[in-house]
Each structure stands twice: as C-alpha cells, then as structure tokens.
C-alpha cells in the first residue's frame, strides 16, 4: 500500500474523501420511542427520590417532635419534685402523671381537657399528613 501514497497529498486527499464522503444516516425509528420510555422511567425515579426525601424529612420532624413532646412532658411533670417527694407504692402510671400534673399546675384553673384535646388534634394532623406524604403516588 505504501507505494500508493508516495506523498502526503495523496494521503490527505484520501482522508478528506473518507471523512467528507461519509453519508448521513437515518436515525432508527425506535430511537424516539426508546427515549420517551427512558424519560418516563427517569421521571418515575425522580418522583421516587422526591417522595423518599420528603418522607425522610417528615419522619425526622416527627422524631424531633416526639423528643420535644417527651422533653415537655418531663418538664411539666416536674420530675425533681417527684424524685424528692416520691409516690406511694402500688400506684400506676396514670396516678404518677396525674399527681405530677397536679403538682405542676396546682394553681391552674383552666381546662386540662381542652389543652389536651388541642395537642392531640395537632399531633393527629401531623401524623396523617406524614402518612399521606409517605404514599405520594405517582400520577402521569
């Protein structure tokens, strides 16, 4: 073959011919279809990632909320007094909390049930919202 390309010009010409003469191909008919299918999958994956992110964030909020509620209940039940005064033996958890609340709010004249109902309702709404976010079904 070397004898066919004695000078650089011949080779240059051949390269030029090979590259410039390459015909344009028609894209396969399945290309667009496959891209659409893969885009659908990508969108599903994106939705799943978003759902996972939101559900993890909401779970974190619930966890932090539960910790805060536990800390508040401990604060309200005035543990230090309970430690120092103690409860008589044979009494259950209900008596423990009732005594603690009475000791904490001995001067409070309002409605415990009203405050309790509000806290319970807010908690229920937060839980329901979290459950709904968890579902977050994909709609095309």
């Amino acid at each position, binding site marked *: *073959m*070397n004898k066919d*390309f004695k000078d*650089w010009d011949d*080779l*240059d010409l*051949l*390269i030029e*011919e*090979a*590259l*410039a*003469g*390459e015909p*344009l*191909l*028609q*894209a*396969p008919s*399945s*290309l*667009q279809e*496959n*891209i*659409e299918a*893969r*885009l659908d999958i*990508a*969108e599903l994956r994106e939705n799943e990632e978003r759902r996972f992110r939101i559900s993890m964030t909401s779970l974190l909020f619930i966890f932090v909320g539960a910790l805060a509620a536990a800390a508040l209940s401990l604060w309200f039940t005035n543990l230090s007094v309970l430690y120092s005064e103690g409860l008589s033996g044979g009494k259950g958890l209900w008596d423990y909390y009732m005594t603690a609340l009475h000791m904490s709010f001995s001067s409070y004249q309002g409605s415990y049930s009203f405050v309790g109902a509000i806290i319970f309702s807010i908690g229920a709404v937060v839980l329901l919202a979290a459950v709904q976010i968890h579902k977050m079904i994909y709609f095309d």
Partner: protein
Amino acid sequence: MTREAVLDVSLVAGADALGELSDIVLVRQCQSGHREAFSELVRRHQNLVFNVAFRYMRNKTAAEDMAQEAFLKAFRLLKGFRGDCSFATWMYRVTSTTCLSELSKKKRRNEVALEARNTELLVAKTPKPEDLDMKERIRRCVTRLPSHYATAITLYYLKEVSYDEIAQALEIPQGTLKTWMFRARRQLRKIVEKELFSNE
C-alpha cells in the same frame, strides 16, 4: 364528538402547534416542565445526534445507545441551558461529551481493543470492496485523536454544522478552532499512515 375524539383532536392540534415553534421556545417550555416540548426537540434533532454519536462509536447499536444517553442527559441539564448558543449546538456538545466519556470508559476497560479485533474478524468474514474498508478504517482513526481534536474533526465533517457552531460547541474562539483543526489533521494523518501501512 366523543370525549376521546376531542382529546385526540386537541393532542394533534397541540403537536402541530409545537411543530411550528422555534427551538428556543420549546426549550423554555421544557424548562417550565412541558414534556411534549422535549419530545418535539428529540424528533427534530434525533438524526443529527444519531449521526454525531455514530461517528464516534462507529456502530449503529452503540450510536443509538449514546443518542439516548445524550438526550436523557440533555433533559436533565436543560434547566441550566441559558440560550447562549442554539439548542443544536448545545446538543452537539452534550452528545460529544457523552460519547467521549463512554469511549474513555471503554478504553479503561480495554473493550476498544477487543471490539477492534472483533470488527477485524467480522470484516475478514464478510469481504468488502477494498476502497470501502479503507475509508471505514480512516474514519475509525478519528476516535484515536485527543478528545477535543476528535470533536472538532467529527463536527467539521458533519454536514449542516458551520465553523461558528463548532467553535460555540467547543466554547473556543474561531482562531483556536483553526489551530486545533490544523493540528488534528496533522495527528490524524500520522495515525492513518500507521493504521494503513503497519497492517500491510
């Protein structure tokens, strides 16, 4: 007219309307979450993207895979497209990057050598006219150039791509592109010479 028929008519009307819009309008629609606009962009540019991919991969199946990858990548990156260049130019860049990174991955996995061997075996099994074979071998040499030279050469010889568009796709001034083209041709000549004459 039934509800389905009304929906069909509106879809066809929508598709027609999309067909009349310019690329940049379609891009803006995509950026605001309009999937059909992206489908229209795919329909318009699939041939060019496929051809760019084919010139890097030299294989129709691999080129189709790369074209798909390039469009998916474009879909993900489209939010960052500011419209400094045309969508087609931007797609050349995305396709070239996708193909080159795939080729370099293959090189790392030593797949290129194997593929070349397989192709040679195939060529040996199915005799072709000598002239056609040589041209294909020359075209394959382009992928052995450094990536920026390969992109410049590939886009230059692809019809419908202007010098200005190549410079924009590579994000370089036209003067630099001319220098790159000169050096790319010189390197390509050496690679082709080695490829054609060493096998004789």
